[in-house]
């Protein structure tokens, strides 16, 4: 059986933030994420998790090393191209939800494909379906500011998976939630993965990471352990 294609491939990725002395947030990361995986990235605060997510999501470029996302070598792409890659191939979920309050859940989800050129009507149809999928069919026309934290994060997840991107990157998606909502979100992510969505979930909570099929643990900008490397080879 051949391994599924790699949707994300990092080779010798480093990231330095300028300063005196410069901050070496990533110090040589090799990591491959294959289609259909659900990966938990765990590590203490300051270990470089968010920086890694930004580099994986093409929100930032590495100082050195190669990054391939959805088959594109990002060093060859312009800022405008990277925007296009994010628009179609990458979904994001953030700890702070980043919803546009004052808009309805439906509009927020539909914005997941805002910059792809899909018509507003098609986006809204798709958004209504996706909101149903994450269990918020009854909240479609609610303003997101009126929703609970757990519901807000569901809206954000729906927005991220709306166009079935090649990969969904979640940075501490349960960081602002109580444990019940947190469990529900983790279950939702597991279900979506079962439906074929490729997911990387960053968390500082080892218990959450332990629930995922593969765990990568990060320490001081280096991969300390990768459960995939221990088992089946790449």
């Amino acid at each position, binding site marked *: 059986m051949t391994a599924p294609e790699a949707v994300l491939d990092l080779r010798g990725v480093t990231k330095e933030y300028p300063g005196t002395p410069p901050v070496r947030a990533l110090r040589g990361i090799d990591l491959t994420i294959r289609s259909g995986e659900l990966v938990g990235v765990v590590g203490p605060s300051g270990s470089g998790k968010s920086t890694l997510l930004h580099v994986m999501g093409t*929100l930032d470029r590495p100082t050195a090393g190669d990054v391939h996302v959805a088959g594109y070598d990002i060093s060859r792409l312009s800022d405008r*191209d990277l*925007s296009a890659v994010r628009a179609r191939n990458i979904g994001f979920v953030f700890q702070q939800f980043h919803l*546009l309050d004052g808009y309805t859940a439906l509009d927020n989800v539909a914005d*997941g494909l805002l910059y792809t050129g899909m018509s507003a009507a098609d986006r809204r149809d798709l958004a209504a379906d996706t909101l149903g999928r994450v269990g918020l069919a009854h909240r479609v026309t609610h303003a997101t500011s009126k929703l609970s934290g757990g519901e807000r994060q569901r809206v954000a997840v729906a927005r991220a998976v709306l166009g079935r991107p090649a990969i969904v990157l979640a940075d501490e998606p349960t960081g602002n939630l109580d444990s019940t909502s947190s469990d529900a979100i983790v279950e939702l992510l597991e279900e979506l993965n079962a439906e074929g969505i490729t997911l990387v979930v960053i968390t500082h909570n080892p218990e959450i990471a332990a629930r995922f099929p593969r765990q990568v643990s990060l320490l001081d900008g280096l991969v300390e352990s990768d459960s995939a490397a221990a088992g089946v080879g790449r």
Partner: protein
Amino acid sequence: MTDRNGIVRSRLHAGDVLRTATVGLRTRKMRAALSALGITIGIASLVAVLGLSDSSRSDLLTQLDRLGTNLLVVQAGTGIGLGNAELPDTAAVMVERIGPVEDVAAVGSVDANVYRSDLVPSTRSGGISVSAVDTNLLDTLEGTVAEGRFLDEASAAYPTVVLGSIAAERLGIATIADGQLVWLGDQWFAVIGILDPLELAGSLDRSAIVGAGAAEDYLGFDGVASSLYVRTHPDWVDGVMGVLPATVNPENPDQVEVSRPTDALEARAAAESAFTALFLGLGVVALIVGGVGIANVMVISVLERRSEIGLRRALGATRRHVALQFLLEALMLALAGGLGGVLLGVGVTAGYSALRGWDVLIPTVAWTGGLAAALVIGAVAGLYPAMRAARLSPTEALRTT
């Protein structure tokens, strides 16, 4: 559209461009309204100033047109050493002989007082003079009667009087019904008419006007004119002005003063354009202040909405999409302010014109120029904030600390 890497570019439909550009306006309505207010005031003052000056100028021009600029007034000079000069007896007859002169009406002053009744103490004269006039005076002045009628050949010989508008007001006479009488020079005179204000002979507004014949018979008037109102052919006004002094008083032409009353109205029109320029300048200053206000609000908005910018970049917005969103928001703020300003300016112009009885006249350039100015200011004010928003890197924008 794909580029050389086979990547389908990020795209934003026109409708969505507008929707994203109104996010800030819709979620922060109060602030949007306040920041547009400066532009509103600026544009409103521009429109109102242009509208009012045009409306008032057109009113002045219609007035000039109606009154005619071919009326001349001849008076005895009142300079130092001239005493209480009078025009020579022959003045009116001589002036009538000048070819281009079409009409001459003489006015003489009568030494008498006017009262509402014979009981008012004679110390309270009320500042009303008595003038003895020719019956063609009203036509010569293009004046109109508010009540009753003017003097004619018949009434000018009898103790009848026509009151100037201010004179009537001072005497407390608003109507000539029921045989209204006034006590004029120890005798009752019947009031047969009240005049509208005379734009070209304001002094007559304060006069009780009697026929020259009646003045001589009842009030001891000596028949000597103190002023002549002269209508000339419109093409010969300057020429007539030149020959009038010598015609009226061949021996002492320098004791004769000739003036054209419409000159004052024309001077007023000129003065108003000077004021217009001043207020236009103030309006422009208000606009610039309004533009600075919008720029300021937009810069704050960009800082506050950093995470929204980060989110949009994560969703695939290009720098250009972000810049466009904020630039358009500033433009819409300014345009909304501009539209409000045009409405306000038109309202002020219409209201004030109605009050003054002018035709409302708002030059097209006032509102098209106003809106164009608002757009230009919006674009300039939005440019810097839009660039700042676009320059923000996605990670910087998403950073929560």
